[in-house]
């Protein structure tokens, strides 16, 4: 478990002059073991005729750091800061043990467009791995930087990043009339470009993205009944899809996009159901008298995992996504385990576990049944994998509610910028 003394706060500050100074991103690193790939991202060269504030290399640095797969070198360690190929002296980078080097520059094309040029080098063999040009505007600059980070990530690791994906989160705040306002917010995965897509007096719960990432389903806790809605992100159009007798909660979109798993309490206690969206037909998966809730699909859509207190305390169970199937208990260690969802490989579950030290984010290995705790906070909720499985995100509860991104080993932690208020739950979009 990381303790305060073994952590450093790595403040990465963009070293650009005057108008180009950007927000400071704080990434906390537990220094126990350094095992990321050492990479240097040199501050991009900026032509003199640019006076707009643009989001530049800091975006790339933050993206690569958050995954835990890279150790992004602090700029004050650099022996040189080249912005052109001809200025790169590989000896200077070998000396400070950098494996990969990114340089770039930006120049004005016309009134509103900028050309961004970037190159990735293998320091060891002194070869360029790729070079690309992008056209950006002041509003698309972050998007381009995420694209560059993705390119670097993919070329070096061989896997696709999640830097271009989005999140949805719920946040509650108090209005000037002293009422609570609940909002559903969609943002880039790092919290930027936040847009409120729904405002209501009633709590919004369990947002879940459609596989095409164009719609979001959620439950609204009404005065008399909770109902499940589907909303189109771009238009805001929304409709009720489940208002069956009892409470309708915890929707989870199937990987093929045609069904929702959800919890309904028409028999007096919460059970797991599947709704086919086209026909509005439902099938019931569980029938016991205890709590069954928080269903989530396996990546192949064959199984549903869910939380139940049919044993003592909450634990995770698994059932085939059909009627009248055997129910199998998955988690055996811990006082309680809840809100599980699958890793993209289907081999692990991320969940909220109580191992006697509070509610923490845990990774459950389905094969070995072991659980590893990866968060260092203790009132955690709503933990999810990124679409590529190489980052984790969850909500830290308590006095200062916020969203955190974790590397899968828990080593790298960073806070996600959110709109003002108390953050409640978070959902990560799919890779599309």
């Amino acid at each position, binding site marked *: 478990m990381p303790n305060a003394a073994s952590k450093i706060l790595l403040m990465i500050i963009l070293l650009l002059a005057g108008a180009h100074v950007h927000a400071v991103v704080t990434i906390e690193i537990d220094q126990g073991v350094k095992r990321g790939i050492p990479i240097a991202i040199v501050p991009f060269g900026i032509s003199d005729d640019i006076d707009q504030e643009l989001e530049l290399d800091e975006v790339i640095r933050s993206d690569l750091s958050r995954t835990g797969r890279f150790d992004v070198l602090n700029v004050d360690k650099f022996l040189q800061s080249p912005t052109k190929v001809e200025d790169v002296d590989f000896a200077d980078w070998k000396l400070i043990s950098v494996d990969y080097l990114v340089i770039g520059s930006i120049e004005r094309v016309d009134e509103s467009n900028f050309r961004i040029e970037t190159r990735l080098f293998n320091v060891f063999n002194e070869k360029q791995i790729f070079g690309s040009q992008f056209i950006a505007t002041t509003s698309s600059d972050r998007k381009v930087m995420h694209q560059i980070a993705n390119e670097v990530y993919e070329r070096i690791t061989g896997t696709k990043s999640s830097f271009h994906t989005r999140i949805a989160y719920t946040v*509650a*705040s*108090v209005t000037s009339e*002293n*009422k*609570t306002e609940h909002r559903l917010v969609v943002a880039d995965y790092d919290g930027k470009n936040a847009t409120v897509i729904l405002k209501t*007096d009633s*709590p919004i*719960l*369990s947002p879940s993205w459609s596989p095409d990432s164009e719609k979001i389903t959620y439950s609204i*806790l009404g*005065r*008399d009944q*909770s109902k499940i809605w589907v909303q189109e992100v771009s238009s805001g159009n929304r409709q009720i899809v489940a208002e069956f007798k009892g*409470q309708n*909660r*915890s929707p989870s979109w199937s990987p093929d996009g045609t069904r929702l798993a959800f*919890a309904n*309490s028409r028999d*007096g*206690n*919460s059970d797991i159901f599947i709704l086919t969206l086209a026909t509005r037909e439902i099938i019931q998966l569980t029938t016991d008298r205890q*709590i069954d*809730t*928080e269903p989530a699909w396996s990546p192949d859509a064959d199984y549903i995992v869910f*939380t139940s*207190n049919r044993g003592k*305390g*909450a634990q995770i169970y698994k059932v085939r996504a059909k009627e009248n199937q055997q129910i199998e208990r998955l988690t055996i260690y811990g006082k*309680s385990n*809840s*809100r599980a969802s699958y890793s993209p490989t289907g081999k692990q579950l991320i969940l*909220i576990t*109580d191992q006697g030290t*509070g*509610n923490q984010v845990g990774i459950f290995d389905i094969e070995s049944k072991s659980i590893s705790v990866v968060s260092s906070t203790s*009132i955690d*909720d*709503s933990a999810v994998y990124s679409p590529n499985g190489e980052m984790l995100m969850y909500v830290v*509860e*308590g*006095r200062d509610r916020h969203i955190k991104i974790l590397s899968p080993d828990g080593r790298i932690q960073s806070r996600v910028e959110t709109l003002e208020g*108390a953050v*409640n*739950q978070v959902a990560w979009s799919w890779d599309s």
Partner: protein
Amino acid sequence: MIRNLFIIGITIFSLVLLAGCAKDLESVDITTVDSPESSEGVSGDEVSGVSGTGDAVQFGIDGEDTTGTGDTQAVDPLSQRTVYFGYDESIVSDEAQTIIRAHAEVLLDNPDANLEIFGHADERGTREYNLALGDQRAVAVSSFFQEFGVDVSRISAISYGEELPAVIGSDESAWSLNRRVEFDY
């Protein structure tokens, strides 16, 4: 002894019943929109009340109206409209049953009154699980009202999970007051 208390309680209750209805509805409305972040109103009263007497059960949502004259008495079950639960449990304690029985008798004498039951949980555990846990607690309390003769058609029960804490705080003193069922009629 208990029976006498009930009769006294019922008499007091009958006197305030009509005035109480409007007030109660209003206070429930406030509860449903009250901010989890707000430290005013109900939660503030409860915090100071608890530290003053050390008796958590005395400070239900409407507690401040009816406890004013009862300081020297142990506990008048009719002054309580909140019952509390253990962590991740929905077992109705003996103390809670006494409170429910007292109110059930009032309801039997007032056949036009309908009962609303609100289940709550502390912030630990996930939101959806806590909603289901609040359901389970509300259902458990509802079962005792039915056991004591209140017809199920007069009862509505809903869970607010961890969404509407009575007390803001992240320690056992707050959690124990948030693991509760409130009822109103």
